[in-house]
Each structure stands twice: as structure tokens, then as C-alpha cells.
């Protein structure tokens, strides 16, 4: 019996059956369920609830704030797990500096607290409690040293205690937190009326799209014409995600999944256009790049189709720049050894192959001083997610 896969995005529905994928522009005057039933009612009626699988990025996903004891372990591990679970990180706090930090004003879906291997005592104290009093959050989870559990349970209402994400040998243990976060995502969906209604047509858990994409990566090379190591850049309206093979990083994380995800919240072309433009203007190479593309800086302020294309090219450039060795950010990818770059998301609707190649070649020549660039594949049918959901 065949199955039906549906991805609910912020601008499109993608519906996949028998290896063909239909894409439908969303009608924002309707709720998701009505819109989907209106357009795909015939298709939906052919499947039982058990055979319908849905993932969604439409509700923006969960937000998290992470409080950790050190950068190299607690924060690094928790950030890694959160990203791979498809969650957006609002902020991170290095615990020894917590007194100097003010909590974000917005409501956080889940606060993650981590520090110390099991047996390490009194990592957290009153300072944490005072900080949390000023924060707004819905869920809170502790994944640090077992010795501090009692203190936190006594003092923080509704705190969920899970297995430490730092093993006794200082390695990452991701399972418990990852499961918790992906389940929470589902619970969050349940709270959102719009998506809750989709359970009328599926009997399966609805996952977040980035989580599904991440799960698809081990299979991508079987289906698309890519060679390992590769990265997937998903440029959408609000955020830009990059999924990469762990072979491309040298760090102290030894995790089970071979692929990680990194999110750039402020590099979307529509919903975060302003900050994209701001980031672009403060990059030393961007003016040269604009010149190379035969446009002036003024294009960044325009609202034309051409301007959108340029912005998409800029976001590809900025993402590569941010993970290259020229930018000491959270992660540095070994882009020199990369064989393929897969572009997916809204960007594939706008850019031609040549436009994508042009920008990547510019990056490789100008920044990495290479003569050639990796092969570029545009996932135009936006089918990557279907491999992850079929699992």
C-alpha cells in the first residue's frame, strides 16, 4: 500500500505520493486544514489515516534558551542536540556569567539547563533561580549532573529531569534530550489549533521539517547525484538552515548521527529581510560581490524580483562565509574538502542553476582561493524531506 507524505511550509504545501510531488501555494485566508482539504481533497480521500505522514515548519518551530556551564561541553552539546531536533535557539547563557545576563523578553518554549558530569556537586545555585524568576518560559528541562537534580527539583516548578547529556567520560549523550525535544515539538503543535486539526487526516506523529530533513541526509546520496561529503543549504522565508556531514568538522563531539544542523535565524529573505541586509552590508566582501553581479548597493533597498534574487545569492554567500574558517562562529566546516552543495527550500523556486553556481564559485575563488567549486544540485522538486519522513 502506498503512502502519502505532506510537508506544510510557511509558503507552500508539498504533497508526495508514488514518487511524484505536487506543490501548492498556501492561501493565508484559510486555515491550514481547510486549505489543504480544499486543494488536495481527492488525494487525501484515497489514503487511510495510517498511511498519511505530515511534517511542518509552518508554526515556526519551538524556541529554546540554553543555560550551560562551559562553551566547549555543556553549551556545545546542548546546542548541537537542539539544532538536530529542529529547534530554534533564541539565546545561550554561559552560567558563570549569568549575573551579567538579562533574560530574553519573549516567551521561550523550553529552557534547557546543563552542566557537569554526573557526580559533580553544586554546579547551580541561587543565581540560576534569580535569573529564571525574570524569564518567561513554558517548559524547563535539566540535563546536567545527577548530583544537582534534588536542588533543582525543589526550587524550580515543573522541571523535567532527564539523563545527563554529558557522559562520565565527557562525551555527548543525545538520545534522551533529543526524544524529549521532538516530543515537545509535537505537544507544541497540539497546542496550535491550526495544526492540531491535521490529526484528523493522520494517525502518525507530526514532526518538524528540519528534523525530518536531518534524518533524510544519510540517504540523500542514494537518490540525488551528490558525492560525500556534502552540505544541504535550506534557504526559506524566515531562516536559513545548513545541514552538514560531521566529516567536515574537527571538534570534540562524537555523536551517533553522521549529520548536524545549524540555523541562521536572521538570514531569511522575506521575514528577516532587514537583518539579512544588515549582515550583508557589514560584510567586507559584499561590495565586491555586488559589483561582480553587476548591481549597486541600492538594490538591497529595492522590492523587485531582481532584488529578491540578489538577496538569495547573498544569503548563500553569507552562510558559506559564516561556516568558513574566516569567521570564528559556533562551527567551522572544512569547505575545502566539500564535494557537493545541495540547495533546497524556497530558493530553488527563484534562482537559476547559473545564478547559484555564480555565487558559489565567487565564494570559492575569492574567499577560499580555490579554482573550482563543488558540484551544485538544486533540489527543485523539494523532495529531500520525503526521504526523511519515509523512514
Amino acid at each position, binding site marked *: 500500500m502506498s503512502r502519502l507524505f505532506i510537508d506544510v511550509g510557511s509558503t507552500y504545501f508539498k504533497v508526495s505520493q508514488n514518487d511524484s510531488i505536487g506543490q501548492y501555494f498556501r492561501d493565508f485566508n484559510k486555515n491550514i486544514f481547510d486549505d489543504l482539504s480544499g486543494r488536495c481533497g481527492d488525494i487525501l480521500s484515497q489514503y487511510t489515516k495510517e498511511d498519511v505522514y505530515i511534517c511542518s515548519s509552518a508554526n515556526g518551530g519551538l524556541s529554546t534558551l540554553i543555560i550551560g*556551564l*562551559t*562553551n*566547549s*561541553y*555543556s553549551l556545545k552539546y546542548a546546542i548541537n542536540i537542539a539544532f538536530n531536533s529542529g529547534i530554534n535557539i533564541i539565546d545561550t547563557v554561559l552560567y*558563570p556569567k549569568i549575573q551579567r545576563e538579562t533574560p530574553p523578553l519573549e516567551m521561550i518554549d523550553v529552557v534547557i539547563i546543563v*552542566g*557537569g*558530569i554526573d*557526580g*559533580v*556537586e553544586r554546579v547551580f545555585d541561587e543565581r540560576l533561580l534569580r535569573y529564571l524568576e525574570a524569564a518567561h518560559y513554558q517548559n524547563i528541562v535539566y540535563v546536567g549532573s545527577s548530583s544537582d537534580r534534588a536542588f533543582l527539583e525543589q526550587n524550580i516548578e515543573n522541571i523535567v529531569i532527564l539523563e545527563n547529556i*554529558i557522559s562520565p*567520560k*565527557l562525551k555527548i549523550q543525545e538520545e534522551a534530550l533529543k526524544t524529549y525535544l521532538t516530543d515537545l515539538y509535537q505537544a507544541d503543535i497540539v497546542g496550535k489549533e491550526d495544526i492540531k486539526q491535521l490529526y484528523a487526516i493522520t494517525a502518525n506523529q507530526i514532526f518538524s521539517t528540519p528534523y525530518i530533513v536531518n534524518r533524510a541526509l544519510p540517504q540523500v546520496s542514494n537518490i540525488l547525484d551528490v558525492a560525500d561529503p556534502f552540505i544541504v543549504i535550506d534557504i526559506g522565508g524566515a531562516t536559513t538552515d545548513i545541514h552538514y556531514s560531521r566529516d567536515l568538522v*574537527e571538534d*570534540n563531539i562524537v555523536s551517533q548521527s553522521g549529520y548536524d544542523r545549524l540555523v541562521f535565524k536572521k538570514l531569511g529573505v522575506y521575514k528577516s529581510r532587514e537583518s539579512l541586509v544588515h549582515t550583508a552590508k557589514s560584510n567586507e566582501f559584499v561590495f565586491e560581490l555586488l559589483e561582480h553581479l553587476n548591481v549597486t548597493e541600492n538594490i538591497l533597498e529595492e522590492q523587485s524580483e531582481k532584488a529578491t534574487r540578489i538577496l538569495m545569492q547573498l544569503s548563500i554567500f553569507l552562510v558559506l562565509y559564516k561556516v568558513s574558517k574566516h569567521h570564528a562562529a559556533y562551527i567551522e566546516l572544512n569547505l575545502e574538502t566539500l564535494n557537493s552543495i545541495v540547495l533546497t527550500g524556497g530558493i530553488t523556486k527563484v534562482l537559476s542553476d547559473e545564478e547559484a553556481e555564480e555565487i558559489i564559485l565567487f565564494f570559492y575563488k575569492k574567499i577560499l582561493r580555490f579554482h573550482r567549486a563543488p558540484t551544485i544540485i538544486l533540489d527543485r522538486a523539494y523532495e529531500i524531506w520525503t526521504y526523511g519522513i519515509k523512514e
Partner: protein
Amino acid sequence: MKVVIGVVGNDVHVVANRLIDISLEERGFEVFNLGVNTYLEEFMDAVIETDADVLLISSLNGEAEGWCRDLRILKSQYDFKNVTFMIGGNLGVGEMDPQLLVPKFEAYGFDLVFHQIDLNVGLDRLEAFLEARA
């Protein structure tokens, strides 16, 4: 007692570090081995996460000075209570005078400094140091 070990900087000499791991285990220490190519910040963070008693850094390729200069700054950013900071291996480039090297690394904030000194001699000194401190 917990000891964090590893080789600092962009240093790939792995053999001594393996011996250090084994020797410390034999002497009854609990060892957290960060391996080669480890940055000073990672060492400090590992000490914090494990609440270690000793940080034992080794450096063989001559880069120690460049990588360890900032120890004092990092030490001032956290309360490292009773942690013993120790370094050994080839701390200079070529045949440097230990008379000059040892005070230099002590000034960076190390309690015990061993330039081209046999491992077991160093570990005996560490045990004596810990005993005296206790």
C-alpha cells in the same frame, strides 16, 4: 582524584599522551583524556565540567608558549579552587635552557613545570605536591 590530560594547540604528538593516560590510571587517578590538538579553553572547560583536581597538559612540538600564555586570564574567569596546573614535554624550541623556561611557565600560572623531564619523575613530583597540599 580526577585529572584532565591532553596535548595543547595544533600538536599531534600522541605517544607521550597515551603513556600519561596509562601511567595515571595505574597510579589510581581518574583520567579524562582530551587527546591531541586541544585548545587551552577546552582544557579549562573540561576541568570545570568534571570538577577535576589536576590539569596536566603536554606539549611536544614547541608551540607551548604561544598556547599557554593566556592561562592566567582564563584562571581569573572562574573559581578554580584547588586545581593543580601542570605542564611538561618539550616546552621550548630546540635546546632551550630549562632555567629560563620553568620560571616563564610558572609566571603563566602553572604550579608544576617539566621541560624534557622523564614522565615518571614528573608524576612522582605531582603526587608529592598533592600530598603536601592536602
